């Protein structure tokens, strides 16, 4: 059957090439399709260049000119986020404050702010996350000055109307209620609660109670304390002239007066580790079981970062990584399985997981454990695995500077993590230096098999007994907030 198919195609090839003289050369030299084309010389790494300034108010300014298209990406990034600036009884305050900055200024009401953005063809996005926040937009070159003026107004002159707070809070309460039905959202909340506990900001989820406690005064104070130039970086990437955009920004932000320090990023101690445990959240009737397996991880500035990147690429960072190749492609248990580290200033989590068909929850758990033990030494890293992981990480770099926004992201991430300006130039040699023994060492060190947290959200009636029968770890039943 195989042979016939190929013969039939070959004979038609001849007929086609005879009819079209332009293709005669191919008929004369039959193509050997079994030969993998050898790639030519790799493209040159072109790292964007940028210029650094200090503004009068103390904010850092970095400008990177990229003038092939009439586009600008503008961002103000603030060091520190909810984990540094929110109180434990007001979880959700940082995010609500960010949203409230679109609700009206001294001269524009919420509708005027919205209409202005629509007419400028832009969107001014304000977000405050766990360890940093930003106020940013992208626009065409010609709309940039007006968009910047609008951003400045929202940053400096927001009024924070009470009725807007009431509306936003009510909307968030509905989103919170809906999250109780989403297996992925439940797994994320429970995983965080168990890894970090009640007294660590990473373990303090936004709740109905914390949202209801937030007052307008809380928001006014948070805004005043948080958005300070002393902890800010302004980045402009795109179709601008560095010197003149600096002058434009100085002028636009003249009302943003000095002050603010970068926060210390000190975190409370982690809860003492428990022996490996399965935390089962019952979701009656669930067609799949959602897995989240892991432990607290190292900060971004760990000297093991490069080895960890290579290790995770082999374990669960790519489609053909061990986890996905086994649990999806070979076993068919899932649509996708992956792993990764949430790097930041604090102990962001290592997490492996995916959604497994209910009937194979036990078998999936066995395979997860096999792969986690494997990367820690039980299954040696092959030369091919090491090479592919490094090639993938290294050769991805030139393509990451594709858009004004991706260049902006690349610059901001260096500033946030305190990495040097020549970071991307040194990246290739650092990844190249990672050895097999480094991969195994960091797997052992940062994936703590003795103390893993295994969260499974699924249909208890069907999955509890088979999972217990694997004998992998004791099962503790938890509710959807991680309570026992």
């Amino acid at each position, binding site marked *: 059957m*195989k042979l016939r*198919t190929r013969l039939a*195609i*070959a004979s*038609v*090839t001849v007929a*086609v*090439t005879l009819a079209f003289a332009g*293709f005669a050369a191919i008929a004369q030299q039959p193509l050997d*399709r079994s030969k*993998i*084309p050898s*790639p*030519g010389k*790799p*493209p040159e790494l072109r790292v964007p260049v940028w210029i650094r300034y200090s503004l009068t108010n103390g904010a850092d300014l970095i400008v990177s000119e990229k003038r*092939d*298209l*009439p*586009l600008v990406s503008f961002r103000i990034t603030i060091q520190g986020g909810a984990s540094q600036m929110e109180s434990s009884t007001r979880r959700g305050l940082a995010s609500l404050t960010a949203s409230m900055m679109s609700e009206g200024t001294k001269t524009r009401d*919420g*509708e005027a702010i*919205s*209409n202005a953005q*629509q*007419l400028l*063809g832009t969107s001014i996005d304000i977000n405050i996350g766990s360890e940093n926040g930003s106020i940013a937009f*992208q*626009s*065409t070159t*010609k709309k940039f000055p007006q968009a910047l003026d609008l951003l400045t107004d929202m940053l400096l002159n927001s009024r924070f109307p009470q009725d807007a707070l009431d*509306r936003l809070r009510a*909307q968030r309460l*509905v*989103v919170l*209620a*809906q999250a109780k*039905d989403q297996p992925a959202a439940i797994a994320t909340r429970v995983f965080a609660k168990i890894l970090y506990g009640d007294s660590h900001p990473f373990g303090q989820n936004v709740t109905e109670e914390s949202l209801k406690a937030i007052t307008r005064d809380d928001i006014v104070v948070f805004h005043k304390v948080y958005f300070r130039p002393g902890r800010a970086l302004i980045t402009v990437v795109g179709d601008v002239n560095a010197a003149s955009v600096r002058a434009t920004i100085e002028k636009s932000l003249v009302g943003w007066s000095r002050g603010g320090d970068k926060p210390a990023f000190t975190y409370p101690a982690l809860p003492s580790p428990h022996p490996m445990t399965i935390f089962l959240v019952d979701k009656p009737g669930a067609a*799949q079981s959602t897995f989240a397996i892991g432990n607290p991880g190292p900060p971004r500035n760990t000297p093991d970062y490069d080895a960890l990147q290579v290790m995770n690429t082999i374990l669960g960072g*790519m*489609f*053909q990584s061990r986890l996905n190749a086994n649990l*999806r492609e070979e076993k*068919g248990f*899932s*649509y*996708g399985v992956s792993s990764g580290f949430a790097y930041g200033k604090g102990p962001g989590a290592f997490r492996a997981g995916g*959604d497994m*068909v209910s009937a194979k929850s036990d078998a999936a758990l066995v395979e997860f454990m096999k792969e986690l033990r494997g990367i820690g030494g039980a299954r040696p890293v092959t030369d091919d695995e090491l090479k*592919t992981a490094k*090639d*993938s990480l290294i*050769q*991805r770099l*030139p*393509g990451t*500077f*594709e*858009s*004004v926004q991706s260049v902006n992201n690349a610059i901001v991430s260096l500033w946030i993590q305190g990495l040097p300006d020549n970071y991307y130039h040194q990246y290739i040699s650092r990844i190249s230096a990672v050895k097999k023994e480094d991969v195994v060492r960091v797997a052992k060190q940062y994936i703590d098999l003795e103390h893993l947290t295994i969260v499974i959200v699924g249909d208890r009636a069907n999955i509890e007994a088979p999972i217990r029968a694997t004998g992998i770890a004791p099962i503790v039943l938890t509710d959807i907030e991680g309570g026992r």
Partner: protein
Amino acid sequence: MVCLAVLLPVFALVVLSQSKPSAIKIPFESYTLPNGLTVILAADHATPTVAVTVWYHVGSKNETLGRTGFAHLFEHVMFTGSGHVPYGLHDNLTEGVGGSNNGTTSNDRTTYYETVPSNYLEDSLWLESDRMGFLLDTLDTNKLNAQRDVVKNERRQGIDNQPYGMANEILSGAMYPPSHPYSWPVIGSMKDLSAASEEDVKNFFRLYYAPNNAFLSIAGDFQPSAARAWVTKYFGGLMRGNPVPRPTANPVTLDKETRLVFEDRVQVPRLYIAWPTVGEKSDDRFALSVLDAITSGPRTTRLTKALVYDQQAAAALNSYQASNEEVGQWVLTITPRPGHSLMELEQAADGILDKLRTEGPTAEEIQRATAGLEFEFVSGLQSNLGKSATLANGAGFHNDPGYFQTEYQKMLAVTPSDVKRAANKYLTKGRVVLSIVPMGQLNQASKPAESKVYRRVDE
């Protein structure tokens, strides 16, 4: 008004002279191989990557009853290796060298794509040509079965185990008669996925995966002369297939309202209203897209302003015009705030839409809706993958890779009266209204007594 019409072009000229030239343009060349493969080349050296899109004119509408979901299952099989490419090499020569790859299936087309560092273009063409020409050489039942399980899990993850995940499937099933090729979901039913056989794979491949049913679009950092030579080398020898049958997918109209209610594992009910509209081939879709843009989204759009901001009865609201190749839908989704019923929201939305049908939108609303198009387009030009997909879609659906320019101009040309006409023509009483309610709470539906209970068909 006359003054404005005269002034506008002058203003536009001034603006254009100040901005970069050719902002709404993707320079490309296009030609067809003797075997029918359409080739599109768009060189741009800004980023040292190349994106390759291979677009096949086949989707779930080409399926037959009893084999729903097959086009998409087949897409998965296309990643399991081919005559000269062992399983896994496709990933290693894309993701494994710093690139990426994926595929998508819609009702009308199946697209395969990869972005690679520019020195791997020849490898990508080798990979794509091998599965276009030699997929069946290495096909086996184990591969099919493994991907069948993966796809069933894709369905569980995206639909069965997802709150409100069944909504689109229920709406399409109610909008089209069962024989209509848009009546079934792209992902298919569990029963049909179980039934798909190796023989089905072979027949589907031979009919639909021939070069005469395909479009190869390459965008990014490459030399066109080298690309042309490689395309000829790897694709030139593939055999032209038989003429491809195109199923009839006529537009539908509903003579009355269909009302349904579905119990789901949710705590918050939600209302869906879907109207049958037009697809890619009809210019009315531009007015329908603008209608969508002035109806929901930013807080000054009509329904969002009324229901989320002024009345504060809805927690969230969105609408969209979904254009398939032949037919489309205009869908409105409303999530209530506690204390507000789906019926109240339906009536409030109908009141706002009635006013829009009677009065039409203002010129300013149209302006707000289309002001962002230029930025969206120019921003999209930064992505080699985005460009290759845009050119392939134009070629596949409109026989013109440069169709994006026509589309852009037609969007900008939409007038208030176009939108008013479209609202009156399409947002009629012939529609599907679906309430998704918590288990055991059928009475939370909008007009529960008139709503038929929809039940899930289990695997």
